């Protein structure tokens, strides 16, 4: 296992419109990105579990040009609704900072 914070150079969250939240993870190198993408160690089920959402509320994309993983999910409450806590959605990335991804030594050399 390797901590995601050691594999990524950017881990962020932000609104994608007032009703959705989007997470971007940009990897440090194309090698790391390709390996994560190949193994699909980041996936919709994992993000749904971290954010306590039904899996159907999460969509994921691997974006090759930026060596990035993106997950877009339904916001718990729309931006600005009573009880909502993050208008811009810019501080919803914390659960990802605890995450470790499977990284067995049998594969390509570690970064």
């Amino acid at each position, binding site marked *: 296992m390797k901590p995601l914070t050691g594999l990524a150079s950017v881990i962020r969250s932000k609104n994608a419109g007032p009703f959705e939240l989007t997470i971007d993870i940009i990897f440090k190198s194309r090698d790391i990105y390709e390996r994560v993408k190949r193994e699909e160690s980041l996936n919709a089920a994992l993000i749904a579990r971290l954010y306590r959402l039904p899996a159907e509320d999460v969509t994921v*994309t691997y974006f090759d040009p930026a060596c990035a993983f993106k997950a877009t999910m339904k916001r718990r409450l729309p931006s600005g609704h*009573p009880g909502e806590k993050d208008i811009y959605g810019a501080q919803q990335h914390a659960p990802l900072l605890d995450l470790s991804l499977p990284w067995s030594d049998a594969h390509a050399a570690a970064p």
Partner: protein
Amino acid sequence: MKKKMTLLSPTAILGYGFPESSFTRGLSFDPHLIAVDAGSTDPGPYYLGSGKSFVPRGAVKRDLSFLLRAAVERRIPLLIGSAGGSGAKPHLAWCREIIWEVAREEKLSFRLAVIPADIRKSFLLEEMAAGKVEPLGPVPALTEDNVVESTYLAAQMGPEPLIRALEGGADVVLAGRCYDPAVFAALPLRRGFPAGLSLHLGKILECAAIAALPGSGSDCMLGFLEEERFYLEPASPERRATVDSVAAHTLYEKGDPYRLPGPGGLLDLQETSFEQVSERRVGISGSRFFPTSPYTVKVEGARLIGYRVITVAGARDPRFIESLDEIIDGVRKRTADNFSGDAGRFELTFHLYGRDGVMGPQEPHPRPAHEVGIVIEAVAEEAALAEAVLGFARSTMLHYGFPGRLATAGNLAFPYSPSDFKVGGAYVFSVYHLLTVENPAELFPITYEEVR
């Protein structure tokens, strides 16, 4: 001779500012267009709902004085989109007034096109009944109440009305709510550049130097458009455009980085390639645009749900912090009981900073710190009720008796007197839907003014 165009984006949002040196350097490339996007739904529903700008007037005036002077003196078209932030009637009027004020003070004369983006409620209701309105993403289906109760409704225009304004001889175009890239793409489209490249370039330029390294929302970016590719370069020599910085920006604030829907079509980046052509310049090619039929535009609206009053307090007593959930539960019950005659007319919220104040029920580590910051918030249909509910909840929490309590003088530390703050109107997004339109031009009528 191949066509080329140079575009200057001074700042990510009109009023966010830019260094004069960057703007001067940007102008030294003899741009064919200066454009700026002023809008966003990001600051939340208040600004659209209340008709106010999220950027201060003085900041917008400062930016406009540079932009108008350069545009008029050098005869460069200037396009401004999503006036006043939300781009509805009051926002447009506010920005128009600043333009006239700058023109008077700087003695500038030009032809101004003003394009409102407001949607009549009766029209939207008719279209809703005709099945021409659908939610945009995970948004509830539109209801008649949400339309009728919206303070303002604005549709996001595409480049077409801007192109017509340019054809109508406008030197400066001030548009209401506008698809962010449209102010950049309008002139290139009119000159026959491919839509995919024009819109993708606009998509990056609308955030100005945010796509640079180091990134900044208050510095200028240049776009160099050709028929088969475009280039990006920050105006400030202290910044660079890199493949990583531009590709990373392509992800920003979007649900799907490969397929970007907009008015009348889809920007498709599946075959886009990014290339570092020099130390500070990135080349981009392969971006495509697919028109969709029928033509759809996004409509945004916000409505007033009541008035908000808040208080801010700290708690340091470990026994109190340990019992917080039960205490809050007790305060809620006491408040509901005290205002039982107003049940359903108010909402009470507790934000617990130091525990789960940022993520709420999605917080993975809801363990409180040694002290907890508490924001109590009441939203009620009338301001007086919000004040009464908040005051009652605050004093109840301050003196709440819980098992094991030692500090019987008071549970909360207030940093301020008065302790309660009237925030004012509380709004929610009421409309965020796609509207199918036969003729998009009809929604966005243009008026021309000779400013002098």
